[in-house]
């Protein structure tokens, strides 16, 4: 089932009762999630991701805009009738019920034609348990389960009623680092096996990039970019998206374009044909640096971290807006650590120009607005 959001907006009353101002959690959000895809909703904390998810699930009512499941407008349909499965950030397993009872609970609530017999319910619950691999834990109460196991139970509970859409709110944030890696593969596998359209919320770009078919990057309730993870990474629409994706993060410099050349400081580092003269923010991905004797871009060398497979070159530049520039170069390049400076050539497809005021991406040939 595909999910379509049209102009979805959510306002919350201000916490300060006296002020009439409203907090805009989600602002005019429109996009479509194709059937059977795994979509990562990505943004920094407090950007309205969870509100978004709650509006899809029906727990929150949008201030304006519509939610469609397939061709059905479900904006006014209560959550219990939407047929969605939701996994909460803290799992919200009922503490007084065993894992099995937790998984059975959604089935017990089915009414009318969908009503199941006791045997069918058990069969379905066991199938769900097998899918998430918790068949031996069914008689345990949540307090006797580890975080990862609780999360599996929560996923089984969400899946058991065969939802049209599965929603996960920060599904991995309560797990330790190792379990997180393991569980995200698991999530991917479960999603593939069931083929259920899945939306998950995360603030961790690596998590979103690694398993999603599609990522939706949002900031302060506004949709910034949507697309396949690699496409978004390779072609960010603005400085925020460029900074948010990628680890180590993108290096941002103050620069300017003069006469078809890109300058960082006084150095002419790259050709920038078709871009009109203006001060710009320059984003360079860590892998965009190619060390070269006599390269066009020279930085002060701070240090080198050898990883084996590749090497991190840490350097500094007066026009850089952070602490240290980090360039990831192939281990075959030998960097002379005795020298004070290091020179690079830049890979044009790893260098992005952004409007200094608005942060919008400037592309060659486009009129710089």
């Amino acid at each position, binding site marked *: 089932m595909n999910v379509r959001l049209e102009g979805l907006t959510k306002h919350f009353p201000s916490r300060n009762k006296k002020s009439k101002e409203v907090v805009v959690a989600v602002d005019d959000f429109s996009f479509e999630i194709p059937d059977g895809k795994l979509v990562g909703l990505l943004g920094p904390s407090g950007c309205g991701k969870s509100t978004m998810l709650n509006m899809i*699930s029906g*727990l929150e009512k949008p201030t304006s805009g519509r939610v469609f499941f397939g061709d059905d407008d479900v904006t006014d349909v*209560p959550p*219990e009738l939407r047929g969605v499965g939701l996994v909460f950030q803290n799992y*919200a397993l009922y*503490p007084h019920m065993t894992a099995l009872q937790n998984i059975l*609970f*959604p089935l017990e*609530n089915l009414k009318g034609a969908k009503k199941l017999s006791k045997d069918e319910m058990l069969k379905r619950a066991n199938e769900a348990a097998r899918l998430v691999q918790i068949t031996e834990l069914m008689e345990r109460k949540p307090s006797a389960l580890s975080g990862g196991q609780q999360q599996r139970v929560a996923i089984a509970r969400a899946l058991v*009623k065969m939802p049209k859409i599965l929603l996960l709110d920060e599904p991995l944030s309560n797990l330790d680092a190792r379990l997180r890696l393991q569980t995200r593969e698991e999530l991917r596998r479960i999603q593939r096996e069931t083929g259920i359209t899945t939306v998950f919320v995360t603030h961790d770009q690596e998590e979103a990039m690694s398993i999603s078919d599609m990522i939706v990057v949002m900031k302060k309730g506004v949709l910034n970019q949507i697309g396949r993870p690699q496409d978004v990474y390779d072609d960010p629409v603005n400085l925020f998206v460029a900074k948010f994706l990628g680890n180590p993060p993108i290096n941002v410099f103050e620069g300017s374009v003069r006469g078809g050349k890109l300058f960082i400081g006084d150095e002419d580092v790259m050709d920038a044909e078709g871009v009109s003269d203006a001060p710009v923010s320059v984003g360079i991905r860590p892998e965009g640096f190619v060390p070269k004797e006599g390269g066009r871009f020279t930085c002060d060398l701070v240090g080198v971290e050898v990883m084996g497979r590749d090497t991190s070159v840490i350097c500094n530049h007066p026009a850089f807006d952070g602490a240290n520039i980090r360039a990831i170069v192939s281990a075959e390049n030998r960097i002379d650590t005795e020298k004070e400076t290091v020179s690079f050539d830049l890979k044009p497809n790893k260098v992005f120009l952004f409007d200094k005021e608005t942060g919008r991406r400037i592309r060659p040939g486009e009129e710089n607005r």
Partner: protein
Amino acid sequence: MKKNGLKAWLYLLPSLIFLGFFMVYPLVDVLIYSLEEGYNSASQTFTGVGLYNYAYVLRDPYFMQAVKNTFILVMITVPVSTGLALLISLGLSSIGKLRELYQTIYFLPYVTNTLAVGLVFMILFKKTPYTDGMVNLLIGLFGGRSVDFIEGPYWAKMFVLSFYTVWIVLPFKILILTSALASVKKDYYSAARIDGASGFKIFTRITVPMISPMIFYLIITGFIGAFKAYSDSVALFGTNLNAAGMNTIVGYIYDMLYGDSGGYPSYASAAALILFAIVFTITVINLLISRKKVNA
């Protein structure tokens, strides 16, 4: 280790002394009194030792009436007050506006003196030469026959007493249950809604189990409190409870000690120990059930 043990006892000493003086000593004393036949507190003499006092108390029709009254009171008021308190706290936690106002109103009986409340109930229920009382006026309005709730038939008096007791104990229970309800995380309700549970089902399968420790706490303390009822009966029916037929076990104990027919500490002690045995048994049963049912 041994040194530490000594230290621990030293720290415990102050409370042990207090407990010993005010709990253990009186308890033992009561037990001794209850076994001394014909004990006279003025001359400190007694005629024999045995279970005579228990036999006397258990054969005393006033005591049996008091036991019956107490049991009826307990069986009516504990479930009714706990159930009502649950409904009211549910209501309180689901309304938005004027919540504080309602909370205050429901809490008023708690800070009102028992005897003052008794006076109000008199106005509501008592028949005098001038008026039949407010409740009877209402009954008359709907075409019913007026009933003397204070000096009339047994069931009418029992009704007033139960009504009164429920009203007195409600605020505390509401207070406890409202805070218990507030402590249930909202996520559980959201999850249950996503799981398609109806409002009633959420209540029985999620809300009640989640607050069950508090409900059981209220039931246990409710039982204990109701078994010890006395002042409520006095506030409504005066001090001569035996004549009114509305005595309670604690009332009987008091009468045996200080009442017009009093001066029998041995009988009072025996009755007190019987009450203790009853309360103890019921509490143990309660705890056994709760251990099975309550999800702590």
